[in-house]
């Protein structure tokens, strides 16, 4: 089984049910600010590191005010980062010109860009995780639908999430059943199955899934479904949401444009 399995997909949605000032904001405001944050962080040149530091403020404050525990975030970061690290590591290999020095030690351009890639990965992934933890999939869906994302796509994401656990559970127990019947010939869930066995296991899972789709469809028709799911619920932008949106956007753009770290360091160092 792949690493994803030991993350509980429902965990973030659980956190979304906490009550805090951040949680109460309109999902659209939060989506927009997160999007802006990611764009701004990613627009920082890959050879700047100190310039990224101020942006730590957002996930940090966000998590804090919202009361989100750090552990679930870190666990998911731990899974997402190695991938970025791997690709960034290629830079380490490729770019070996000395580009700067720190306390007298030369750093290659590769090292700097590698660090920058990692830091930006941490920041952007945290932002996404934070968004889900303070909003929840279903309110994100409502927000997106109100911002013009096609309703059929929003419905699709919600349905997928709904049946994700059901079908994953079926997949896990089928996979375990195969293992138990292999009399120790296969060393466990992480190894792969030979293609024939794989084909029939997946085929079975697919058939069960298709059968379920038929049953769900019947249940939907039995309650009057005629082809499109209507999402009730109205989101209204309140004063607080505008304040949040406006101030965060302004701060993000200011931080990007200025470079407080450099300035602050100059002030501190220059004072000596």
């Amino acid at each position, binding site marked *: 089984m792949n690493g994803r399995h030991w993350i509980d997909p*429902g965990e973030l*949605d659980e956190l979304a*049910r906490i009550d805090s000032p951040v949680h109460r904001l309109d999902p659209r405001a939060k989506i927009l600010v997160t999007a802006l944050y990611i764009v701004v962080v990613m627009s920082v040149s890959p050879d700047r590191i100190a310039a990224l530091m101020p942006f730590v403020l957002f996930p940090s404050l966000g998590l804090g005010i919202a009361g989100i525990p750090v552990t679930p975030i870190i666990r998911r970061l731990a899974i997402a980062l190695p991938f970025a690290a791997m690709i960034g590591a290629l830079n380490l290999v490729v770019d070996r010109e000395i580009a700067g020095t720190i306390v007298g030690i030369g750093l290659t351009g590769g090292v700097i860009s590698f660090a920058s890639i990692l830091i930006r990965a941490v920041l952007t992934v945290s932002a996404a995780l934070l968004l889900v933890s303070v909003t929840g*999939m*279903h309110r994100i*869906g409502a927000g997106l639908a109100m911002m013009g994302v096609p309703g059929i796509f929003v419905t699709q994401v*919600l*349905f997928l*999430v*709904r*049946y994700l*656990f*059901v079908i994953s559970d079926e997949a896990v127990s089928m996979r375990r059943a195969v293992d138990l019947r292999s009399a120790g010939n296969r060393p466990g869930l992480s190894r792969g199955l030979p293609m024939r066995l794989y084909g029939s296991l997946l085929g079975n899972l697919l058939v069960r899934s298709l059968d*379920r789709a038929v*049953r*769900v469809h*019947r*249940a*939907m*028709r*039995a*309650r*009057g*479904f*005629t082809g499109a799911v*209507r999402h*009730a619920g109205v989101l209204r932008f309140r004063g607080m949401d505008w304040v949040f949106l406006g101030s965060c956007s302004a701060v993000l753009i200011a931080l990007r444009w200025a470079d407080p770290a450099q300035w602050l360091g100059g002030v501190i160092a220059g004072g000596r």
Partner: protein
Amino acid sequence: MSHHLVEMRDVWFGYPDGTEALRGVSFRITHGESVALVGGNGAGKSTLLLHLIGILRPVRGEVRVGDVPVIEATLPQVRRAVGYVFQDPDDQLFMPTVREDVAFGPVNMGVPAEDVERRVRDALEQVRIGHLADRPPYRLSAGEKRAAAIATVLSMTPDVLVMDEPSANLDPRARRRLIELLRGFRHTKILATHDLELVRAACERVIVLDRGGILADGVTSAVLADGAVREALGIDG
């Protein structure tokens, strides 16, 4: 005439692969009756029930709900009058939260928003899961899911409640609560089930289905005491 009549007249049904599932089934159920539909696996119980809301259509014969035959044109009103609780609650709870699932039926019926809210609240209270309204379905226990599934149908204020294996997967406590609930409903009830204890506790009439045909139809105590029925159901081993 009222919608409280459910009737099948000489219904025959077969699947595309040739299996005959219903052979000349006829019965009449009147307002307020609590009827159990029993039979072994493959006897045709689910197939029969699906005819009552027009998901399946007979090859021969007629199904009537209230004054109307169950045909394409009458499906909306039939499905409003007959609330169907499916065997697997996961098939029936497909929305992100319980509240939205319970609202699904009324919204599709075109009920205005404030009324939808009221119906949702009432339905949840009837099955005593008001506190679970904002839960996602995957965080419910089997008993809670069953209750939620029933609520999704109650919110449509049906006249007839049809349930396919309502007590499956329920622990003894949840089962007892279900029985209590059912005894409290004044709807006409049709329950397909293997659970004879449930039958005795909640249904005064039993229809026995055997290989697509009706073997017996009558008062619970009499039917369940009958030798041929006990043989067909495998009661005495």
